[in-house]
């Protein structure tokens, strides 16, 4: 849509910046550009804010490669900022690109139409309906659990600043998702995020204009409301204009921190001791099913993370998948395409150098408690997690794992132990699984190089894996078995979230049956709110902690939990989880908070019980009345019937 050229171009608007020498600009262009420039660049500054410029460029709907080229050509990269000259040149180049000319200085010498920016209004009454929706859709973080993240709330409410245009809807990734790598990281993320950032002026780096090897992650730092607390405070002081190549790791939900990575690697090791080899599909499936995400989401996560589509996960793929699971459980929406920072190549390289910035490490762990509150929300999505059939083609796998899960659920165990069991069980099945999936596309050898050779896809289809049924009848059998095993399955061991400091796991209520889980899971988030402050870190890191149970424990078995928690605390702290000093300070606070919560709940219980008995009383009285009335009626009846 073409914003109308400014009416009355005769009087060129006052602009402190003149057009760069040698660049012919018509009057309308001059006026338009100066408007855009002043919009992007608050008057006192000499250079346009990198973030607003980035958004503007994105609104031009050009592919990001073109935008990078434009940035380079206009000289912003060279000088490091968008001065008026660079800005004007860039705008002209955008116009050229939109008209189909190559991005070159020569092409802008000609007369060109004005560059078009989607949904860019000249007025200041841009409404943020779209980005807010995007925001809401993308993040789905429940308000109730965000008492800490007031930032985010004010963002949604505050739509006054006309600094950025409403973004066009998310669904415009420029390239087909079949090539995961080069896609700018869920375009929608960058857009919605930049909507966010404009509103509170957060200077998240706009990376689109500085591109490092991977041409995409513009505004990678998409959507980190949950991390808002600590990291936002810090990043507010960061320079805006400089599109520098240093990523702001703390902002990016799709970047794996060092401790997360270590955790994932450990989990991988528990499933597959050889770090250079694969985890087969069935093993991975059982593992991720324990996270109790719905199967379609897990399926999508798999699709995203299994880049070479061989039905097995290498270490970087596994880390990516695990990270996506964690993010999803924290309430983030899954991206349409794999973010760059989760690419296997990237992760391979990243694993070689540790992340800098230990400060961010702390902030990450601090802010994670906030993000964990979103688990409550994600919990309500999983009401049918148990009903979802366990899709294991190997029947023995399901049965054994279910029994395993059952055992696990009834005893307090820590994850490493469980995974030992799992590994033991699946180790013999792994070779079967590997054999059962001979795919000509996946050289299921035990070296990553072979897996990476994925390039060619043979035109003929690979032989069908054995474990997929070959007859119609077996399909039903599969389903029947799955239903049977579902009844048996009663517990799960979720991969714990990455914030690893051990917290008192008050949630060790393994005794609670699943039946109780369901009604509890539907409890409104407001309930969770009061508990969540107490529990938010609790579930976090505990390896055996079950977020679902977290809600329950306040209602029932409050007594047992304090007893359990010290023991679990001890055991968990022994685990691979790394303790953090700030956490231990809070654990005692946790206990107190938990105990007060328990007391409150007991009182509520008592009140409800009283209410119940009163109502029962009333019911009895009403019954008596009714009986009395009926007898009266009977007596009267012979009179009336003549």
């Amino acid at each position: 849509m073409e914003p109308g050229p400014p009416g009355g171009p005769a009087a060129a608007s006052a602009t402190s910046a003149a057009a760069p020498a040698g660049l012919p600009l018509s009057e309308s262009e001059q006026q338009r550009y100066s408007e855009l420039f002043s919009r992007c660049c608050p008057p006192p500054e000499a250079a346009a804010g990198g973030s607003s410029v980035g958004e503007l460029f994105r609104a031009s709907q050009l592919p990001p490669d073109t935008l990078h080229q434009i940035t380079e050509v206009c000289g912003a990269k060279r000088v490091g900022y968008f001065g008026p000259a660079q800005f004007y040149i860039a705008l002209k180049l955008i116009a050229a690109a939109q008209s189909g000319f190559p991005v070159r200085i020569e092409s802008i010498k000609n007369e060109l139409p004005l560059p078009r920016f989607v949904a860019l209004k000249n007025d200041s009454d841009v409404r943020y309906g779209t980005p807010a929706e995007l925001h809401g859709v993308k993040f789905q973080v429940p308000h109730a659990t965000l008492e800490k993240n007031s930032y985010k709330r004010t963002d949604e409410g505050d739509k006054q600043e006309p600094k950025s245009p409403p973004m066009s809807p998310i669904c415009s990734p420029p390239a087909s998702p079949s090539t995961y790598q080069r896609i700018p990281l869920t375009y929608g993320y960058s857009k919605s995020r930049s909507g966010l950032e404009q509103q509170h002026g957060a200077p998240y780096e706009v990376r689109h204009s500085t591109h490092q090897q991977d041409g995409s992650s513009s505004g990678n730092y998409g959507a980190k409301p949950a991390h808002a607390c600590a990291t936002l405070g810090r990043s507010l002081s960061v320079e805006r204009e400089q599109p520098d190549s240093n990523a702001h790791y703390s902002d990016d939900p799709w970047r794996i921190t060092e401790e997360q990575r270590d955790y994932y690697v450990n989990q991988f090791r528990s499933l597959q001791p050889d770090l250079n080899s694969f985890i087969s599909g069935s093993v991975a499936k059982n593992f991720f099913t324990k996270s109790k995400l719905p199967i379609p989401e897990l399926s999508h996560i798999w699709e995203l993370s299994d880049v070479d589509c061989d039905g097995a996960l290498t270490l970087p793929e596994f880390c990516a998948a695990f990270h996506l699971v964690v993010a999803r459980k924290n309430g983030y929406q899954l991206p349409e395409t794999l973010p760059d920072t989760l690419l296997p190549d990237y992760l391979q390289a990243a694993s070689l150098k540790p992340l800098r910035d230990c400060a961010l490490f702390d902030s990450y762990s601090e802010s994670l408690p906030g993000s964990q509150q979103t688990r409550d929300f994600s919990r309500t999505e999983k009401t049918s997690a148990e009903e979802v059939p366990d899709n294991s083609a190997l029947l023995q796998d399901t049965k054994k794992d279910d029994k395993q899960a059952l055992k696990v659920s009834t005893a307090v165990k820590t994850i490493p132990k469980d995974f030992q069991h799992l590994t033991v069980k699946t180790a013999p099945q792994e070779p079967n699984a590997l054999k059962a999936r001979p795919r000509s596309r996946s050289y299921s050898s035990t070296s990553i190089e072979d897996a990476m050779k994925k390039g060619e896809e043979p035109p003929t289809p690979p032989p069908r894996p054995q474990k997929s049924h070959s007859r119609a009848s077996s399909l039903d059998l599969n389903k029947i078995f799955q239903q049977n095993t579902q009844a048996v399955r009663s517990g799960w061991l979720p991969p714990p979230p990455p914030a690893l400091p051990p917290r008192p796991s008050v949630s060790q209520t393994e005794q609670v049956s699943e039946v109780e889980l369901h009604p509890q899971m539907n409890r409104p988030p407001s309930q969770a709110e009061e508990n969540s402050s107490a529990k938010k870190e609790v579930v976090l890191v505990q390896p055996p902690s079950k977020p679902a149970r977290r809600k329950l424990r306040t209602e029932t078995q409050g007594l047992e939990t304090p007893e359990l928690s010290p023991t679990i605390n001890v055991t968990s702290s022994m685990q691979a989880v790394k303790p953090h000093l700030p956490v231990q300070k809070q654990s005692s606070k946790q206990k107190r908070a938990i105990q007060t919560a328990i007391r409150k709940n007991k009182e509520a219980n008592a009140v409800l019980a009283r209410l119940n008995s009163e109502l029962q009383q009333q019911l009895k009285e009403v019954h008596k009345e009714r009986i009395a009335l009926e007898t009266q009626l009977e007596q009267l009846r012979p009179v009336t019937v003549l």
Partner: protein
Amino acid sequence: MAVCVAVIAKENYPLYIRSVPTENELKFHYTVHTSLDVVDEKISAMGKALVDQRELYLGLLYPTEDYKVYGYVTNSKVKFVMVVDSSNTALRDNEIRSMFRKLHNSYTDIMCNPFYNPGDRIHSRAFDNMVNSMMMQVC
């Protein structure tokens, strides 16, 4: 550019069916369903001995006035049926073949996913995107 793409399981129920949403989509469903007969006919015509040599691409199943129907069968008897607008001039055989090949590759990618049960309906976003790229762009 296809007007309708369908993936039919071995037992002849649809795993995935997607049409251009212009007109009565049931018509396409019906077409696909009736084309299954033709597919079966072609398969059986090959004879059991020739199963391995049978080519996967079945070619034009039957033309009607408005559109043509093409078929493709995999070795596990999963069928891909594609309905193409007749007015779309000269979609060559090669192009149809390549479209089927892409479909097949995407289908195998879905199969790779351990969370996918063979026989379930296909809900993969990647598959959707790929099919979208093949469908006619209707304004």
